[in-house]
């Protein structure tokens, strides 16, 4: 039986096909990207090896840091606005139960399943100044003075984008908290009830402490996905006006394909991977370990 488990041919047959896809589509490209980043290639024609100049340039690039700042703003707003609401609703719907619970749960997740192409273009229409839903709604509520160029005004464009991303991501955040609440052991709540704990005490002393691991997972996930935002930006503002609403993944893309600075785009890309890896590792070290 041991020989079965050590059979080299079997192991190869099990691992090689799948690993080949991963190697070809993920690992190898990252290496190739690093190689391109060391050149001055525009994307067409010949190129020279220029060492780490592109990396140096990226680290001094204001747009690079501004993109990270935008991701941080998105992460902070998600965690402080979307998450408390999602958490509250998860606890509340669990208590309400029955049909109401089911209906709301279903509704909250609908935006998550719709292709990002549709949601992005739909929100561009919602923000449209001529026929857009938002300005019409403000007129309807006699708040016409609040009407804006939602995606054109450099001061508010980032927040307009954050609204889209929080709208689409709400169901995710909710669903994870909801699953967490559902997995809590009932006996604890019954014991608390017998001991005469009121609802606020139950929430503060039992639900929240027991949910800490789920909160950690959810918050880490929110921060990392803030960092990785790209499609919504690409399909709405493309980072504009200027680079006010820029995010890293979109920046590397337009540098490579629109600005014909392919090598520089790759340098940003490699730094982007590094930022994602470091953030993931640091967040996991800080939060997850405490609870598991």
């Amino acid at each position: 039986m041991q020989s079965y488990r050590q059979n080299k041919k079997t192991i190869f047959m099990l691992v090689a096909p799948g690993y080949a896809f991963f190697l070809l589509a993920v690992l190898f490209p990252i290496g190739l990207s690093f190689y391109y980043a060391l050149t001055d290639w525009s994307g067409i024609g010949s190129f020279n090896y220029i060492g780490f100049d592109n990396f140096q340039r990226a680290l001094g690039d204001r747009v690079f840091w501004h993109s990270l700042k935008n991701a941080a703003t998105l992460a902070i707003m998600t965690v402080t606005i979307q998450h408390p609401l999602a958490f509250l609703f998860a606890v509340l719907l669990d208590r309400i139960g029955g049909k109401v619970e089911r209906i709301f749960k279903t509704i909250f997740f609908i935006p998550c399943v719709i292709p990002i192409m549709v949601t992005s273009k739909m929100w561009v229409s919602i923000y449209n100044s001529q026929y857009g839903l938002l300005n019409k709604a403000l007129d309807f509520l006699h708040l016409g003075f609040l009407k804006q160029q939602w995606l054109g005004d450099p001061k508010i464009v980032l927040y307009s984008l954050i609204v889209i991303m929080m709208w689409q991501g709400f169901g995710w955040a909710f669903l994870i908290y909801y699953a967490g609440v559902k997995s809590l052991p009932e006996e604890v709540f019954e014991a608390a009830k017998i001991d005469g704990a009121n609802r606020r005490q139950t929430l503060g002393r039992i639900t929240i402490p027991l949910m800490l691991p789920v909160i950690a997972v959810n918050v880490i996930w929110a921060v990392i996905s803030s960092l990785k935002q790209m499609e919504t930006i690409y399909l709405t503002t493309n980072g504009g006006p200027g680079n006010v609403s820029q995010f890293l993944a979109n920046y590397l893309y337009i540098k490579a394909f629109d600005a014909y600075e392919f090598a520089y785009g790759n340098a940003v890309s490699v730094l982007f991977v590094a930022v994602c890896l470091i953030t993931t590792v640091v967040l996991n070290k800080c939060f997850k370990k405490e609870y598991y």
Partner: protein
Amino acid sequence: MRNVKYQIQADSIKASSLPGKKFARYFIYLLLLIVAIGQLFPLVWLINYSLVKDGDLFGPDLLIWPRDPQFKNYKVAWVDGKIPQYLLNSIIINVVSVSLTVLFSVTMSYAFVRMQWKMRNIFLTTILLGMMIPLHATLLPNFMSFRAVGIADSYLGLIIPYIGITLPLGTFLMTGFIRSIPVSIEESILIDGGTILHIIIHAVFPLAKPAVITVIIMTFFTTWNDFIMAATYLASDRYRTLPFAVYNFAGQYASRYAVQFAVMTLVALPSLLLYMALNDQITKGITIGALKG
């Protein structure tokens, strides 16, 4: 059991409710309703505006009563949006990518968990590292290498990256699950003269069904909703997937707003119908995937 809990809590709510608390509760219900409307209303608006005449969009009304519903908007969207062609491409690409991702994540996970070999930790670690690598970092190099080897404009140009991108999470979920399957089942198959192939078909697949469903759902939504990989790798129209129906309309029909709303509705429809039909499996699958991943 759960109903008992609700009953107990409902009683305790009644017993302890003071006027102020009641107000707070109504406020929370109101908040719940506002958020639900906020989540849903844009989609209702989208469908509503897809049924009116292009010129009617500019009125002051939030919703327009479609006295004369313009179903021809959908006809234009369907035909000129090339929906049948894109839908077929989406189905072909997704069926192949999802099946292969499931198959490979099972075979690889089995080798990582049960087989004994020297390099397994290196291979497993690199695969799991893949979960942290953003797919956007693979766009530029893949664009060049796919073009160089001539698969840029083919089904393979999407199937390969889709499998590569979704395998890490699939393998992660599957290794966790296979660890929980008792070894004794496999050993009895081996004693009866079965091979590893028998084990995988007769023991691992059936027993890991919940994990398989989760991997199917996570992979499907990643690949079905993808747009940026398809936009980057495909050079021509031929193999484009469903989301591109929206993309194509922007320039060509820039002033035909209602038709654009119709095409957006049509593109959203398959995902929406699937979600409605398999609501419970999908949310369960995604929570398992998200909580573990």
